[in-house]
């Protein structure tokens, strides 16, 4: 509200001029969970192809830090989180515009190096002190899901590191510094030289991904169009291709 009632100074916002039913213009700033990096980049390209006058800018990071940035007033139009709890910190703070919509689901796998050299077959194998494991910190959705899965299995794992987002966790594996990492299926699929080991407890730790237009959006029409695009057939196809389950 306060941001909209700005002084009538010279720098007219191209985004505001777009309003009504004219073609969309301007920039859409999308804050998205790190696990959406590849799929949203593709969706962004397709969205820009469909709306040539709009450019999409992404900020990919752990959902928790994105939520903090949004609540501290970061200029974002759309927020896509990796779980409802993190999304709720944004909607509770009044930063969301309307109800978040679920657009994808994701499941954890045990990511190991190609060929599974250490022979990991289940969560129990991660408890072996000889096996170096990287987990996400519990403040981010992948870490919360990992905690749920490990608790469900009754397995006590001492990780060597708690990373700030799922991509950081995965990179410790691709660098060869750990033997196994609990990451999303989509992340394991996105990296070369990484194999995924399924485990039954992941059924109990499925993450729903919600998306919302933000109250402070500088370009609400284009933001709404982007959310619609993610929920559209082509958006869902891009997500499914990356390994997400789509609702």
């Amino acid at each position: 509200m306060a941001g909209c009632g700005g002084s009538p100074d010279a720098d007219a916002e191209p985004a505001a001029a777009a309003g009504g039913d004219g073609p969309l213009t301007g920039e859409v700033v999308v804050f998205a969970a790190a696990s959406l990096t590849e799929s949203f980049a593709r969706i962004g390209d397709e969205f820009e192809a469909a709306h040539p006058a709009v450019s999409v800018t992404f900020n990919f990071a752990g959902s928790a830090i994105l939520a903090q940035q949004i609540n501290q007033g970061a200029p974002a139009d759309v927020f896509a989180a990796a779980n409802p709890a993190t999304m709720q910190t944004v909607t509770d703070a009044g930063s969301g515009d309307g109800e978040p919509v679920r657009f994808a689901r994701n499941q954890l796998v045990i990511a190991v190096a190609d060929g599974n050299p250490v022979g990991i077959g289940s969560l129990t194998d991660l408890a072996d002190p000889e096996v170096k494991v990287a987990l996400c910190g519990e403040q981010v959705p992948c870490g919360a899901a990992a905690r749920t899965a490990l608790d469900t299995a009754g397995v006590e794992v001492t990780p060597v590191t708690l990373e700030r987002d799922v991509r950081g966790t995965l990179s410790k594996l691709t660098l060869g510094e750990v033997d196994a990492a609990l990451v999303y299926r989509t992340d394991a699929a996105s990296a070369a030289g990484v194999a995924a080991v399924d485990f039954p407890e992941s059924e109990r730790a499925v993450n729903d991904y919600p998306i919302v237009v933000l109250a402070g959006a500088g370009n609400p029409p284009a933001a709404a169009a982007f959310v619609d695009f993610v929920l559209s057939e082509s958006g869902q196809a891009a997500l499914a291709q990356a390994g997400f389950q789509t609702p």
Partner: protein
Amino acid sequence: MSTRNQPAAGAAAAPSVGWRRQRRSRHRVPLLLLLPALLGLGFLVLPLAGLVIRAPWSTLPERLTAPGVLDALRLSLVTATVATGLCIVLGVPLAWLLARTDLPGRRLARALITVPLVLPPVVGGVALLLVFGRRGIVGSWLDATFGITLPFTTTAVILAQAFVAMPFLVIAVEGALRGADVRYEEAAATLGAGRWRTFTRVTIPLVAPGIAAGAVLCWARALGEFGATITFAGNFPGRTQTMPLAVYQALETDLEAAIVLSLILLAVSVTILVGLRGRWLGAT
């Protein structure tokens, strides 16, 4: 276009008056310098004041004793101190080599030493991984020969800190060595002292203030290290989670906790700097 120079000319008149008066009263400072100087001061001090103002003072005691806070603080103090010790042991001889010998490649060595100064620390972390990581050139040998893996250990934290902080010490000590009067060393040599004896009995006491200054800078840089640490040593409470990492993690979940942790770091840094400044750096 033609009036473009007028404001500048008018403004230039003011400082010239101020400059003339300055001879009588040293307190008179030209406004054109005073204004940006005060803005600069405010810009540097205001964020620190912001930390102090926003701090949750009423819940401070509980937060200070919250699990993990003291662990992170202790780890930070220990690793920064050990890293500084390592930097002194390796860096002082290195500075001596640069300042007192004319070995070939000295200039190149000096240039290379300054690289970590300007390198983004996260790049330093990646570079450390590529050398000391499990698949690194040195790391794979360590692993195969001794079964030692460095990443994700407290040792890795110390290595990361020493990597980014050592150039500060080397440059400070080299500067002190160049500024020191070589005649004392020559006199010692004339009186029959060997190079090692001259170094320990004459050179070191001569440049001790320089070493202290370098060590303080080095320690402060090590204490604040973030990028190389999280990349090379990872983030695990009690083992590799130093204060800056704890601040960043707290920021994701609990802003007040992040403020408290930042406040502690600020207090520690200021205390050490003030304490050492008075004692060794000879500043007023």
